[in-house]
């Protein structure tokens, strides 16, 4: 296994590096949280980093029409192959260094995928990459809860009931997306016991986010981070609320912030305060009714949504994380 870079944890928001690896001039929406996630990711990783990206907003918006905001090297890979591309890049670097064809130095390898690329199509490749623990790499899933680039189709990560091009509410059937959001990060943590680091994150918590990237890159082996990215286009809200909606997702208990380090679960930020009973969960209505994609919700739909979130906090073995029970028949 090659060595990792020295990327110490950042103490205080004012110590986040000033240098940019992802700059202005990308073709994203106003207030795009995923663009912010790219920017924070590369701030934390630093200039000696190779980024590989599967198809999605962050591919199309950042390299179309022969121009790019990337400062660091970046390569496109197919929709389902962020995992294989990350592993291939890491293996290629290791091989080139072993043969003396390039200087032996730790280079970060990050592959990103959207929820379509990571939670749906590329899940098997992500899983394969997480099994090969001789390579250092990070797979970052930026989850805007739909196929946002192609104008909002349902993905396995779309929340129950959300309006989309594939699930428009009608007069007879109000709820057209009947699937509950896939619980991706715990699935990958449970399924790959040798993977040393799996985390969830949100760009609204900038310091927490950058430190999670650094932990993932320095712990060694393949790692996975799942980030929730409010999408002003598909979620349908005023772009200035991107930051606030990310926080509301956490404060309502819909999105749970944690790290799983060598099998140990560490809750972060407001999630930790909620789990410890220091803070109360905000009602999901505060979050849902801010978004046009839930504008068709009836009071019953809201109740249903709230009940599912309550259940994940009150009935699950590990609240918000593991939806099973150790007791037989429970």
């Amino acid at each position, binding site marked *: 296994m090659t060595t990792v870079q020295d990327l110490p944890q950042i103490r205080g*928001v*004012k110590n*986040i590096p*000033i*240098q*940019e690896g*992802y*700059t*202005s*001039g*990308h*073709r*994203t*929406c*106003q*207030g*795009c*949280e995923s*663009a*912010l996630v790219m*920017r*924070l990711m590369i701030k934390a990783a630093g*200039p000696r980093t190779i980024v590989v990206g599967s198809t999605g907003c962050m591919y*199309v*918006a950042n*390299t*179309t*029409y*022969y*121009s*790019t*905001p*990337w*400062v*660091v*090297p*970046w390569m496109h890979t197919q929709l389902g192959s962020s995992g294989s591309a990350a592993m291939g890049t890491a293996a290629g670097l290791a091989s080139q260094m072993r043969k003396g064809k390039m200087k032996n130095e730790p280079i970060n390898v990050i592959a990103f995928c959207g929820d379509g690329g990571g939670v749906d199509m590329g899940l098997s490749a992500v899983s394969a990459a997480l099994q090969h623990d001789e390579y250092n790499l990070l797979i970052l899933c930026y989850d805007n809860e739909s196929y946002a680039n*192609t*104008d909002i189709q349902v993905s396995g990560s779309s929340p129950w009931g959300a*309006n989309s091009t594939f699930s428009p509410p009608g007069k007879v059937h109000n709820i057209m997306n009947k699937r509950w959001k896939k619980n991706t990060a715990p699935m990958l943590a449970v399924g790959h016991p040798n993977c040393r680091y799996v985390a969830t994150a949100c*760009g609204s918590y*900038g310091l927490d986010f950058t430190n999670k990237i650094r932990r993932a890159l320095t712990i060694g082996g393949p790692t996975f981070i799942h980030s929730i990215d409010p999408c*002003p*286009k*598909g979620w*349908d*809200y*005023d*772009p*200035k*609320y*991107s*930051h*606030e909606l990310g926080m509301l997702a956490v404060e309502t208990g819909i999105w749970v912030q944690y790290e799983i380090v060598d099998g140990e679960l560490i809750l972060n930020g407001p999630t930790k305060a909620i789990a410890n009973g220091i803070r109360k969960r905000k009602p999901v209505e505060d979050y849902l*009714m*801010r978004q*046009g*994609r839930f*504008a*068709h919700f009836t009071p019953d739909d809201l109740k249903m949504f709230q009940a599912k979130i309550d259940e994940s906090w009150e009935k699950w073995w590990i609240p918000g994380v593991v939806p099973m029970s150790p007791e037989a028949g429970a």
Partner: protein
Amino acid sequence: MSTVAVEVVYRGIFQKSLARNIVRSIVFAARKEGKIGTAFGRYGDSPERNGIPAKQFAIVADTAEELEENLAVYQAHEVDVTINVDDTLCKGVESWAWYGLEPINKLTKPNGTLIVTSRQTAESLIEDIHQREEPFSLSIIPGVPSFSGLWVYKDDHTDVRILGTLCKVCPQLVSLKSMVEAIKDQGWSDLKITSAEKAYERATDRPVEPGEGSASVPFSFELPGWKTMEEGLVIRGQGAGGGFRGGEEGFQPDRNEVFKKWSTRSMRPVVNFETCIKCTLCWLQCPDTCFDVTPDGLFDANMEACCGCGVCEAVCPVPECVTMVNEAEFNDNNSQWEAWQLDKDGYKKWMTVLIEKEKLVERTHGFHHVGQYAEEAANAGDN
């Protein structure tokens, strides 16, 4: 034998349904008169991004052959009427695709009409619109530009008011009578018909002479041909950036020179450098990396890069330290920090006037929940 073309220039997603309603209604109305037409969005604008300028077209012809002739091109080369549904687009249109900045009246035929929804005066709008050699007319529909979301449409009658005005300024397209029938056919209310008729009666027309307007030259680029592109379609990355304005201190990132994104902006942040506590949040949370770090540790929003999302205003913990102001108030993209350095008292006065004015007419991005328009209308009183 004739063909009439109309384009609608709008803010991506926010005004997508509005633009669609306009171009579709034109074609429906034309069919009432035995003509044939088609309505379509420009391929290069899709998939749309919030706020990034986009275009939809309606082309109406007497015969199918004439229509086909016009549809054989990627977009209309010239249009009889340009409809601009957000007045800040008068400063120019930089498409999602790579064209540089295009004047709003680029496709408008000589003696054609530019319809704009705006609260500004004709003189103030003409200041923003690029000069050209052929005359055209400016027709203003008074009102705040109508912004919706992807799923929730703000039915404030902007669509029918534009259609009514269009029938007046371009009588060769369709008659008001056919337009009213087309509105009825779509199941819209009688109130919307009244709005269209009133707009027809009240339509104004201000001739714009050659040479009137902004003298600024819109930025453009030489597009690489397939022979000049690098092997493997390699795209050169951006530089690492350096000190503020090339100096030793602060930081200024290198930026994508060929896609600037500022024409996406309908509001811009105005910064009070005196109350700034240097918390870094505006800089850190900006998805567009638009803040330059000045030598004194302040954050200067770069107006060539800012697309006006408003996240900086939302995250700033100090009241009125960052305030989003209607883009129509500005005539340049100059640095605010530099202006403040030159004349601190003057800057403060300028800023205070802008912020107070902004409070009177609040401009927002979109419309996102059912019943919001009714609430807004109730709050606005007799407006």
